[in-house]
């Protein structure tokens, strides 16, 4: 049973506000992923939960109890540090067994447990090695095993798989998921890898500039970002600028290349405002242009079709990225290799989307519900 509640925690370093007013509750057994750009305060937040940093303001609660002042060793939390922090003077095995030693578990038993965990992270056989002699990914795995060994009710993971190759990472993800589900632990997981976040998370928290800007179900956050930052951060998207204009009593937003979308019932904007439209590449359908000479933009049933020229094709392993120039604006679309679209640069193509899939953001970043 471990429910973590952050109540307006902030951390100042001199003038710098590394974390400001973060409040959220992580339920027992939940896996919360923290995502956010470099330097936004993720590690600092974890360190405050782990008790390694005192919040400048705010309260940390564990199962409703205020633990803000409880020292780290009396908290049932464990951090996998971003830069590992292995003990250089202890062997790999001793590193992993350290937490168990702290709970006064006998030598034999703890070495056994440690061996087991090393196996889990595919590091068996390295027990007697010196941590300084390990490769980056190996160190990372030892750090992970070391935290897993103490079997804490709250595990705080700071980019624990960043130095692993895809295959190993996925394997570790599965292990973590298993541990999480099997033992009903609470995980807070910092990652910059969205696939990881989407694969693992029960909920996702997006941080920016020390603030927690959005928390929610992964799909909800992805599909319904409440602000432009989240939209931009979570996926590659095509941002197109538009202007609000009043066309006969109805507010509409119009882009440079002619797309026009009604802003029904929207009150928070006024004519002349700038609006950013997000056209996600996965919602754009790419097809050969039917009619070379037609107008570049046509409103179709509940959406638009635009015509343009295929400018660039980029192979990225299993996906291919197509860049399409529409009246000078460049939009991109992604497809799997397997989709076998047979285009080549210079081809005339058309892109099509539903208005429902277009997200609109005000200049201050807030999403319009239109």
């Amino acid at each position: 049973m471990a429910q973590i509640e952050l109540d307006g925690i902030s951390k100042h370093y001199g003038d710098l506000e590394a974390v400001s007013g973060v409040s959220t509750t992580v339920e027992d057994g939940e896996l919360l992923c923290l995502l956010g750009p470099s330097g936004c305060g993720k590690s600092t937040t974890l360190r405050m939960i782990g008790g390694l940093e005192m919040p400048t303001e705010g309260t940390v609660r564990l199962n409703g109890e205020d633990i803000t002042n409880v020292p780290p060793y009396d908290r049932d939390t464990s951090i996998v540090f971003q830069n590992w922090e292995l003990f250089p003077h202890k062997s790999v095995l001793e590193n992993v067994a350290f937490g168990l030693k702290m709970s006064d578990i006998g030598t034999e038993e703890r070495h056994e447990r440690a061996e087991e965990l090393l196996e889990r992270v595919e590091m068996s056989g390295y027990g007697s090695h010196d941590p300084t002699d390990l490769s980056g990914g190996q160190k990372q795995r030892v750090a992970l095993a070391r935290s897993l060994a103490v079997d804490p009710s709250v595990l705080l993971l700071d980019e624990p798989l960043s130095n692993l190759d895809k295959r190993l990472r996925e394997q570790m993800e599965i292990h973590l998921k298993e541990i999480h589900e099997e033992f009903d632990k609470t995980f807070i997981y910092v990652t910059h890898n969205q696939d990881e976040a989407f694969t693992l998370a029960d909920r996702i928290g997006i941080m920016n500039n020390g603030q927690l800007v959005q928390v929610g179900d992964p799909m909800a956050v992805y599909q319904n970002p409440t602000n432009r930052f989240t939209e931009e951060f979570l996926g590659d998207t095509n941002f197109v600028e538009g202007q609000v204009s009043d066309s006969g009593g109805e507010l509409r937003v119009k882009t440079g290349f002619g797309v026009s979308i009604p802003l029904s019932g929207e009150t928070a904007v006024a004519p002349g405002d700038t609006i950013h439209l997000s056209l996600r590449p996965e919602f754009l359908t790419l097809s050969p242009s039917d009619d070379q000479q037609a107008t570049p933009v046509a409103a179709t049933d509940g959406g638009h079709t635009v015509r343009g020229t295929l400018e660039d094709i980029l192979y990225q392993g299993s996906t291919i990225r197509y860049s399409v120039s529409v009246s000078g604006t460049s939009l991109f679309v992604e497809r799997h290799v397997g989709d076998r679209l047979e285009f080549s640069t210079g081809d005339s193509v058309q892109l099509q989307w539903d208005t429902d899939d277009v997200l609109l953001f005000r200049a201050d970043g807030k999403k319009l519900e239109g």
Partner: protein
Amino acid sequence: MLETLRERVYRPELLVAPLVVFELAFFVVPLIMLVRVSLLEQTTSGAYVAGTLTLANYQEVLFSSHFQDILFFSFKFAILVTTIATVLSVFFAYAIWRADGILKNALLFIVVVTLLTTLVVRLFSILIILSPNGPLNQLLVAIKVLRQPVLLVTNLFGATVGQVYTIFPYTVLSIYSVLSILDWAKVEAARDLGATELVSFREIVLPQITSGILVGAVISFAWSFGAYAAPFLLGSTRQDTAAMEVYRLMVTRFNWPLATALSFVVLLVVLASVSLLFFVSDDNLGDAYGT
């Protein structure tokens, strides 16, 4: 990674050369002269009888109960002082390391400043503090811990206090110098894994500063064995250390052969003890790496 540098630029052995030359010229050569003196016959009418050769001095040092007592006392005294000084220094160095800002400066400052005062005066100050009419006794009587002043000097207690005072700043400095570059993040990691301050100190800090502690212990042991001023001024006149005896033999009694013979016995005893210390701690370090 250094192989390349070595081949092209310098041989690291050359860096050791100045030290070796220095020791050879200024230690080994005079040492040989001393060895020669220790093999001369004693005379009561001068320093030694030139040109003679005898092992009698060593015999006297090794087999007379007088010298045995002195060596044994020195040994005990050195162990006692080293233990106390090391424990206190580790504690104090750790306190300095953990402190911040003005407190850190103050703690460090006191250690350094202590060393800037002339030893003999400092020992006299301690003599005054510990004496029956001194502030400590007065305080203890005033707060009714003692009914009447007790004699804290001219005994083993006084000598030990004095010698610990003498050695303490050196041991603190040697430990702190290693401690000061320790990575705090490692301690944090340990505390996160459930180690209390005490345990993380034992598990993380201590193993990484053993080399510093060892240096301190060696200094402490060697100098306590060779202690002169503190036992002289604060100790019991009944308990002389080897260094005091050597001084007496050499200077007051003008008996060079015996003084040098005793010195070499001291040298060997300390060398053996220190080697043992290194050996034992090396062993422990080895344990730490094995699984």
